[in-house]
């Protein structure tokens, strides 16, 4: 029980954020309880949670997937298509998405987990690319192609629509993040969770002990993908529509960046990484339009206008100088997770 005290305290504090009219200069453009800031915070919570689901694969089981974006995109697009194009009710859309969110990773995971290491990374990348191609191809005009698809807001729960209700969306995001945190915490301490970590440490030894790693890997793959799909649904509610960027391979790479910046295989690392990355991405974009930046000489100003450039460079610096990520700051040794992962990749 003691290990839940800190998360519970954090949850309570976060739950009261929409009631606080505090202005935090530099960190946010406007007071905490304004819709703009609440939406940014909600995005941070969602991506923090999705990064945690990626860490289940990468940090805890040692599976380097480049296709996690696909399952997030399933959550964003299927709900959107079901309510907007097929005119289903929101509840039916949710049920159908949950079904797809379980069946699709079970099938694709069963195929891709037959290979390991780099080949696994490539197959997952290829499946995600197939998803991206489908979205751009816009079959039957369902996905809206590169323009994306705005959700039919009349089908969404009325309490979750409109700027006035941003605080409700924030709470939805918070509940989602808390749920993911609890599930991840419970899963990695459960008995399959220990096997996942054993697979990361030494898969051969798990086999010698008489366990079949394949089933355990498929289990964690489906769990992480399903949680990512749920994250996609929350993201859709937050933004009120789908854009094809969420299907891009770059989005999976972004998840990898988040997890590594935060610290792989740690309790808070992935969440912090995801939240901080999202916040920095947004605020760097705002900052590039600010007076302080526009008065800089163009050599400095031009790169600063692209948040992804700044974040890419920051990421390289983290890999070089904080190899364990922010959650392991101050520890000089290379984290075992990366060492084990490397050994697993070379087999």
């Amino acid at each position, binding site marked *: 029980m003691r290990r839940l005290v800190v998360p519970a305290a954090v949850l309570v504090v976060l739950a009261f954020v929409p009631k606080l009219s505090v202005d935090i200069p530099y960190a946010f453009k406007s007071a905490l309880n304004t819709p703009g800031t609440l939406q940014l915070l909600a995005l941070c919570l969602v991506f923090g949670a999705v990064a945690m689901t990626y860490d289940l694969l990468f940090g805890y089981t040692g599976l380097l997937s480049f296709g996690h974006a696909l399952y997030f995109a399933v959550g964003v697009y299927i709900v959107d298509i079901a309510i907007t194009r097929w005119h289903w009710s929101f509840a039916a859309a949710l049920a159908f998405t949950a079904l797809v969110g379980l069946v699709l990773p079970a099938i694709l995971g069963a195929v891709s987990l037959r290979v390991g290491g780099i080949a696994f990374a*490539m197959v997952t*990348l290829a499946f995600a690319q197939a998803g991206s191609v489908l979205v751009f191809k816009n079959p039957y005009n369902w996905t809206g192609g590169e323009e994306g698809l705005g959700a039919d807001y009349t089908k969404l729960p009325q309490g979750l629509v409109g700027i006035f209700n941003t605080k409700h969306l924030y709470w939805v995001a918070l509940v989602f993040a808390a749920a993911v945190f609890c599930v991840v915490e419970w899963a990695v301490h459960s008995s399959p969770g220990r096997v996942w970590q054993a697979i990361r440490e030494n898969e051969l030894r798990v086999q010698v002990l008489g366990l079949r790693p394949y089933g355990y890997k498929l289990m964690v793959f489906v769990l992480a993908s399903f949680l990512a799909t749920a994250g996609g649904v929350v993201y859709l509610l937050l933004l009120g529509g789908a854009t094809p960027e969420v299907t891009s391979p770059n989005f999976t790479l972004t998840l990898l960046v988040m997890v590594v910046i935060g610290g792989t295989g740690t309790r808070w690392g992935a969440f912090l990484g995801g939240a901080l990355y999202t916040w920095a991405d947004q605020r760097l974009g705002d900052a590039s339009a600010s007076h302080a930046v526009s008065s800089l000489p163009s050599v400095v100003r031009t790169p600063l206008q692209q948040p992804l450039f700044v974040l890419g460079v920051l990421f390289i610096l983290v890999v070089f100088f904080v190899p364990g990520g922010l959650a392991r700051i101050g520890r000089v040794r290379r984290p075992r997770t990366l060492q084990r992962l*490397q050994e697993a990749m070379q087999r």
Partner: protein
Amino acid sequence: MSTFVLLTITGLGLGAMYFLIASGLSLIYGLMGVLNFAHGAFLTVGAYGAWFTESKLGGLSVLPRFLIAALAGLVVGAVFAGLVELVLIRPLYRRHIEQVLVTVGLGLAVSALVVAIWGNDARPFASPGWLGDTTTVLGARVPNDRWVEILTAIAVLVALNAFLRRTRYGLIIRAGVENRAMVTALGIDVRRAFTLVFAIGGVAAAVAGVLSGVYFGTVDPARGTSLLIFAFIVVVIGGLGSLRGTAAAAVVVGLLQQYANYYASSGLGDLSVVLLLGLVLLVRPGGLSGSFA
């Protein structure tokens, strides 16, 4: 029939570009165990190097301008790739996961930087007029640039093969792909070969960058990433670390993509390539050429 010929030659041209990117990827992975996510950035840097040079040479006529620009692109690609290895990859010696992560960060940062400097839009890239003309082959009117792409890729394949088979450095690289620890134990500094392999990969990617500029008539900051994904697929299908396997896979992927896009439906080509990858990995997890490096 004429459509089929056109599709075949266009598919081979596309395969040529995949090969140029994939050969560097495959060599780098084979020798160093690093999956280079910055390879698309090498292509972008090479293509923009050529485009930038061309835009500064206003006075010259098209052909010399194009040749100088292409050469400049190759030099920029080689120097950039070599520097990346020296500055970013070498200090992380033996930490493969970190090396891959650094190339991921670099890939994101470089394309963002290119967008910051030259914008998101594609920039027109002028090439000699006869490249845009067509030659009639078996009733098909084939754009001339396809021949240039195919011939360049063949030339690169022959040159790389000769380099790997006939020179001392080639010998070290081949031995390193086979068994790096043994080469080191024999007192040879493999790390010098690492920089060389990166530079070679950079040149090949830059060639692909210039050729893609000719093929599409523009240079564009997102093209590196989109071609890189297919190059990854080619490398895996061909078997990591095998140059001949890569060449064969590039041809198969390029042709399959063109045929399926035309005869089935547009966009299906990309899907069928993914399907092919899945099939190959399930039947032969090591790729077409057999063993997994």
